[in-house]
């Protein structure tokens, strides 16, 4: 027993000396400079419109896509069905029955494009074309007059849309 102790004490000193002199691990990350420029690594669309793809769509086009792809869960009017409400209820946030729809609550229209493209329709995310997502965004926003019904949305004008609740949020972080 005592012999083991005598052996292990010097061994520990050697080990700690090595650790102090050398890095604890290798840097094993691979250069992703090229890879990270690919579209699949640039999905998030910022409020300034960064990463919005080329494409265009109108409310009239969006209305047809909505009926096919969205109404099943969101309801024909975009509210009152099993999925989150999308349209209507603008101005309801201070009422006794506030309804947080896209049009009443969401602060940025870019988020609508971002979320539809990555997550909708729920049984086939990433299945819609950029044109279809612009068209759906135009349809939803036009239903509450946030954009005119004849506006063709694209990567230039979508970030310029001002949502009714744009200034409705108080950042708690940083405290």
């Amino acid at each position, binding site marked *: 027993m005592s012999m083991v102790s005598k052996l292990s004490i010097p061994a520990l000193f050697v080990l700690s000396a090595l650790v102090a002199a050398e890095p604890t691990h290798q840097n094993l*990350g*691979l250069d992703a400079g090229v890879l990270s420029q690919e579209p699949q690594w640039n999905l*998030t669309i910022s409020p300034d419109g960064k990463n919005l793809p080329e494409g265009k769509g109108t409310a009239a086009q969006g209305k047809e896509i909505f009926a096919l792809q969205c109404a099943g869960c969101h309801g024909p009017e975009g509210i009152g069905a099993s999925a989150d409400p999308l349209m209507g209820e603008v101005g309801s946030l201070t009422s006794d029955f506030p309804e947080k729809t896209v049009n009443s*609550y969401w602060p940025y229209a870019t988020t609508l494009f971002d*979320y539809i493209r990555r997550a909708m329709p729920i049984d086939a995310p990433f299945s819609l074309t950029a044109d279809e997502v612009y068209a759906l965004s135009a349809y939803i926003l036009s239903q509450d007059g946030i954009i005119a019904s004849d506006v063709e949305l694209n990567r230039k004008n979508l970030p310029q849309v001002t949502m009714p609740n744009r200034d409705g949020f108080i*950042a708690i972080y940083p405290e």
Partner: protein
Amino acid sequence: MVDEPKNNRRQFLQKAALGGALVGAISIPVLSKAGETEFPDNLPEWMRMPGGDFTNYGQPSPHEQQVIRWISANPDAPGNGVSWTPLHDLQGTITPNGLHYERHHNGVPQIEPNEHLLVIDGLVDKALSFTVDTLMRYPMVSRLCFIECGGNSNSGWRSNPIQSQAGYAHGLVSNAEWTGIPLKLLLEEAGVQVTAKWAIAEGADASALNISIPIEKLLDDAILALYQNGERIRPENGYPMRLVLPGWEGILNVKWLRQLHLTASPAMSRDETAQYTELLPDGKARQFTFVNEAKSLITSPSLGMMLPDNPGIYQISGLAWSGRGKIVRVEISADGGESWTDAELQEPVLDKAFTRFSIPWKWQGEYAILQSRASDETGYVQPTRDALIENRGKHGFFHYNAIISWEITEEGDINHVYGF
């Protein structure tokens, strides 16, 4: 022979109740049979025949099949919902992996680990990608912590108290030992630029969940977790890797993590604007409310149980946790908050982790309202429901952490009430 064991067992229980002397007397006729002893008749069948086979992966006793996560999902989109940890059926502080709460936005992805990459890019000196295999070679740390969904206990905002068992109303919180790489190591390898204030984390699920996280937290105590309670993280909890941000709401602990994209400002994604924000009475909403404040829950006795003995001594037991640090005190009231007594805290009390509290209680058939009130090391005290609603209104939906009250009727039944 096949039918005998049940009878034998019943006899065993009866004899045991009658006492040793009588057992000997009744056993005499058995002894008269040549070649037999008294024991086969007195011992349960599982002591008289070889037991079951070894198992490659153990499962709970079939007698515990009611201890399950309660699933609540959208029938139109069954992958969008939650499952609740049955806190009322568990003891100690560790949530078994099969019972850790779930929140999925579009199902559990079945990720092929050899095809999964983590990319760290954006405002870094050098964009990097990591395979699972290379990450396994990094130094790892382990820590116990709770993860709580921002929407846990949200039925508390309703006008009437929900009559669900403790875990099925408050169990979108679980506690595990997470093991993985301090995220700081990977961020430093990529080289965080001074302009980087946020990282947009993205999951590899069928909602490509994206959410913005302050870089400050990622450089502090965040872990890129690969293991949960000693084994590789299960698919429903983020396999092959997830973020663990101790003390911060569940949505930020992104599962199936595929990317951290460093930016100067937040993405304003759906889950940091439309969801996980708290609407106040004036129509403004609290945003970036990351920390889960101190909270506690009596898990026993609780709804669905009853008090069988009057008078009787009962062990009040429950869990307390705080996203700001250690729990320092849990007080218990049996009179709806009129008077409070300190419960005992089970050691070790850990930072941002479940703390088990307990206190014996003698019940003598009186009407009672049991409550627990947690305090953390910052001095924060868990609020009453009235105080929470006074501050936040009734439409915040997220971050409900008010004192939870169990009504004990004179018959020993237990109901969820909102207290006084």
